[in-house]
């Protein structure tokens, strides 16, 4: 019963999942997330140790480790590294087998991925030049408005008259937020406007990538219901969100690692 770990070293958080392959049906047995900080190898090791503790498994039980995310190549104990495009597509497809498009809103980078019928990556577009349209936009707004990040999405749902945020720059948008606050605009309406602005950027990326009808939203921002609603309003399609949305890329990496491990094992079996 091989165990495989997938570690997604993102710019803000590092997520690890441990997958166990029992009777050909891979299942997640442990997961954990830590702040990435500046030591990427340490973040990967810490998240893995916590995910193993969550699974109740010793380190030796892991046969294979696959990394993904921006810090994937900084982890010396990896067996395999895959891009977050590949792992995000694999993870989303595993959770929603009908998915034809994946939107991954991360802390610093937003990725729009389209899939073939077989679940392979058909194309993708990312905003990797600047933080406009990424989760850090929401983090900065929440910090300024002194709202817990976990509450932002719920508060935005109560907006009555969303105020557009026109800036595309996450930093200059702060000034717009300040102006709205001083003009007496409600926090609900401001936050809702921020989600609309993010949804607009995301829909542009999706259109350029050639979006399909079945969209899955992954990444930590997917937890925020205000974001999901803003996307649905703009795209006019339902958006599926996995229960453990922030672990989707780590799961995808683990599944790709498992496949690689099984191939190696069967090749070894043929040779012996």
């Amino acid at each position, binding site marked *: 019963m091989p165990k495989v770990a997938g570690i997604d070293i993102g*710019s803000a958080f590092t997520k690890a999942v441990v997958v166990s392959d029992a009777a050909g049906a891979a299942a997640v047995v442990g997961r954990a997330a830590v702040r990435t900080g*500046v*030591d990427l190898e340490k973040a990967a090791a810490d998240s893995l140790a916590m995910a193993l503790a969550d699974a109740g498994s010793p380190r030796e039980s892991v046969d294979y480790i696959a990394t993904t995310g921006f810090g994937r190549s900084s982890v010396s104990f990896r067996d395999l590294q895959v891009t977050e495009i590949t792992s995000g597509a694999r993870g989303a497809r595993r959770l929603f087998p009908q998915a034809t498009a994946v939107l991954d809103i991360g802390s*610093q980078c937003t990725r729009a991925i389209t899939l073939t019928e077989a679940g392979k990556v058909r194309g993708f577009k990312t905003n990797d*030049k*600047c*933080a*406009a349209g*990424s989760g*850090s936009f929401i983090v*900065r707004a929440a910090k300024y408005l002194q709202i817990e990040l976990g509450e932002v999405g719920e508060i935005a749902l109560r907006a009555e008259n969303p105020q557009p945020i026109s*800036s*595309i*720059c*996450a*930093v*200059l948008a702060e*000034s717009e937020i*300040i*102006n709205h*606050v*001083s003009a007496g605009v409600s926090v609900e309406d401001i936050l809702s406007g921020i989600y609309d602005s993010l949804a607009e950027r995301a829909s542009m990326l999706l259109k350029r990538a050639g979006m399909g009808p079945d969209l899955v939203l992954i990444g930590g921002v997917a937890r925020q219901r205000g974001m999901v609603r803003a996307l649905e309003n703009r795209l006019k399609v339902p958006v599926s969100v996995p229960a453990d949305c922030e672990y989707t890329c780590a799961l995808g990496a683990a599944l790709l690692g498992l496949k690689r491990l099984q191939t190696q094992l069967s090749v070894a079996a043929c040779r012996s």
Partner: protein
Amino acid sequence: MRFAAGVDVGSTQTKAVIMEDTGGGGPRLVARALVDTGANVQKAAEHGFLAACREAAIPAQEVGFVVGTGYGRYKITFGNAQMTEITCHARGASFLCPGTRTVIDMGGQDSKAISIGAKGEVLDFVMNDKCAAGTGRFLANAADVMGISLDEVGSLSLQGKHPVKITTVCTVFVESDILSYLAQGKKAEDILNGVHLAIARRTVSLARRVPIEPQISLTGGVARNLGMVRALEQVLGATLQVNAEAHFTGAIGAALFALEKMDQSSESAIGRPAHA
């Protein structure tokens, strides 16, 4: 009436100056004031103007004409006219540094380059107000991440001998770059030097969209940062003129127009804000 004022309501700071028509001696800068714009643009304009009047030791009613400029110019309730910051910066730069043909202005939240003709007229301009790269905001953010005061980043940058490579110009992304260089044990001065050069490259590539002709003046709040001046000169391969009053260029330009308009107009100084 001998006095006129220019009020430049910027996104971050409001600059106000009082200028005097000395007759034969030409216009003279008699007072200046600097206040944070904050959220109440209208109040910032009033405070800036009154502070400049106090500095000049004249009552507000003595100011014959007020021209407002900058992004908040339409919110000035006591002004006689508004003009764009492009026009005012061109005028102010020609006054402070005669012979200026190109103005590079780095403000709190935007940056621009203005091409000026031989007679001081605006020929062309480009502006970046969509993103914080190349603005004071970028430097303020970098200073914040490093825990260094904004006033010190320029002089520290000058001490950098081996600038780190900064490939992004995004104010948010550069935070991660800075943190990882700090984790690698790079010196603050080398990191800041890299940051200043990255911003200089970005600003110069913007400025190259108008013809860059000597002589080149740097204006705006960032002009006080000597590290930025040197980084821009290094990337441009040219010398920059930086007047001691460069921060007030837009307000000075506005006040110069105000002096002219005062001559042409018989309008009295009504509706000036009262001293608080």
